[in-house]
């Protein structure tokens, strides 16, 4: 559907890329829309929108146990998307890819199912930079089962304090739940190293890949993580669909969580037996169009020259930081060695919300607030930041327009 765009210069490249994203072709408050909120949700390219359309216009039917050809076709597309995801993250088998409604549900699934195997005094290790989705489910679990939550602190530049990790990991640590990339600071965490250290004490590792999958290659076997979760809507795919990857022996050992149709083998009032992976964790009619749209998003992503996209995002990141640093009122938050597509900053003497509102008046969409990371804000002593975040469609022009509008806003206030 989508060819690799090569042999064009950068601007033509950008134009060809942006042309595929209908949302970007609009004005906001009378200015051309500059969308710098991709960490909240990415925009969707034509092939993804089209895949959803085609599904509803040609193939819509309930999946599995198909007696009729429409259902067989829907099932085939649905299960093909599972293959695409498995390849995308290099999962050893397709049965290890479980559909959820998003990263949040995937973490809840692990916390409530795998978590039910934990006991009084067992420890869970989180970090200060986690998104609420990777904190609250563990807090709830800890309350229910009398577990202990420990927290990896950050260094001054906004990275995991790896020196603290070896002390925090104990023989009681059962789960380490950690984000691959911070949604506030952009910090990329040393997952492979953390996994190795955690496995040494017998702890399992869940990686929150929400902010990673769209921006860097993810290889769950190379990371050797036990669980990996992400949302479709942050990687150019539809809303309402996400993925839980898990190691087979863990997924098999875990009790079922939500139950209902599709995930059973035999139901009777005297007792019920359950289906095998992946269906064991997929009760009810799934988000079929969401799954198929996510498949299209992965085809879109893999059709791109991902190294080039990554490089472009890195160049923009460096450029935006350099431009921001020239403004004396601005303080960048965090300066991790490896940073991915996200920049947080604050403006001296101004509330983030005022800045965001005035930028919006100039067509610039960025996010202001705690970014669902209140414990991180507390640790930083901030009540919020302004955050700009990039996607494959972000250009130098976007950054320039943002800087111009920001300068204007600062003069204005």
């Amino acid at each position, binding site marked *: 559907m989508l060819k690799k765009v090569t042999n064009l210069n950068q601007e033509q490249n950008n134009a060809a890329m942006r042309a595929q994203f209908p949302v970007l072709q609009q004005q906001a*408050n009378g200015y051309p829309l500059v969308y710098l909120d991709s960490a909240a949700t990415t925009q969707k390219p034509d092939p993804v929108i089209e895949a959803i359309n085609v599904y509803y216009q040609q193939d819509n039917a309930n999946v599995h146990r198909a007696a009729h050809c429409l259902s067989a076709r829907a099932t085939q597309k649905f299960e093909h998307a599972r293959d695409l995801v498995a390849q995308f993250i290099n999962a050893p088998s397709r049965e290890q890819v479980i559909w959820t409604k998003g990263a949040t549900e995937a973490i809840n699934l692990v916390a409530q199912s795998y978590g039910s195997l934990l006991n009084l005094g067992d420890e869970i290790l989180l970090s200060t930079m986690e998104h609420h989705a990777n904190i609250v489910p563990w807090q709830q679990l800890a309350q229910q089962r009398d577990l202990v939550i420990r927290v990896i602190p950050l260094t001054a530049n906004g990275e995991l304090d790896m020196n603290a990790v070896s002390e925090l990991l104990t023989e009681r640590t059962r789960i380490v739940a950690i984000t691959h990339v911070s949604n506030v600071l952009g910090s990329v965490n040393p997952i492979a190293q953390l996994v190795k250290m955690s496995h040494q004490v017998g702890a399992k590792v869940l990686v929150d890949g929400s902010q990673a999958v769209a921006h860097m290659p993810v290889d769950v076997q190379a990371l050797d993580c036990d669980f990996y979760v992400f949302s479709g809507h942050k990687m150019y795919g539809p809303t309402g669909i996400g993925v839980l990857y898990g190691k087979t022996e863990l997924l098999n050992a875990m009790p079922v969580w939500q139950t209902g149709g599709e995930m059973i083998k035999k139901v009777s009032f005297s007792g019920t037996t359950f289906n095998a992976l992946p269906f064991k964790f997929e009760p009810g009619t799934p988000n079929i169009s969401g799954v198929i749209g996510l498949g299209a998003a992965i085809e879109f992503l893999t059709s791109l020259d991902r190294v080039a996209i990554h490089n472009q995002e890195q160049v923009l990141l460096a450029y935006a930081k350099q431009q921001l640093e020239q403004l004396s009122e601005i303080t960048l938050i965090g300066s991790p060695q490896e940073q991915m597509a996200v920049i947080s900053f604050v403006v001296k003497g*101004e*509330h983030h*919300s*005022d800045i965001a*509102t*005035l930028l919006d*008046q*100039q067509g610039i969409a960025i996010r*202001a*607030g705690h970014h669902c990371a209140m414990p991180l804000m507390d640790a930083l002593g901030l*009540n*919020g930041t302004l955050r700009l975040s990039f996607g494959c469609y972000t250009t130098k022009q976007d950054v320039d327009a943002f800087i111009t509008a920001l300068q204007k806003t600062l003069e*204005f*206030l």
Partner: protein
Amino acid sequence: MSNQLINNVFGNEISSDDVLDLFAQQSGWEARYRQIILLGKQLAALPDLFKIEEHQVDGCESAAWLVARQQDDSWQFYVASDTRIVNGLLAIVLAAYNGQSSEKIQEFDIEEYFAELGLTKQLSPSRSNGLHAVVAEIKRLTL
């Protein structure tokens, strides 16, 4: 800072019509927002002692407080927020509500008022500024 609640000029000296007049002369976001921020600066400071959870209005990305006092038939509202623009918007709201009776407050068409000001979107429940929540709270208190 005093611990006394100080009545605002809004609704007492500056009416909603005054605000409408002010905005009729502004065009473009810059003029409008300059005006908003100016109005916000004229809000009487809310003593810290009132900035407690009981007075905090939920549903705002930034913090906002609302204190209400009824004397005889009419209401006075005291507000604060930690952002300039929300303060301005609160001033505009108070221009319509302060010194009014419960009936007048219930009757007043605040959507229409904000529409005339060209600020419809700021009042929308889908905005995170919390203005909608403050207005809803005022209406609830004066029901």
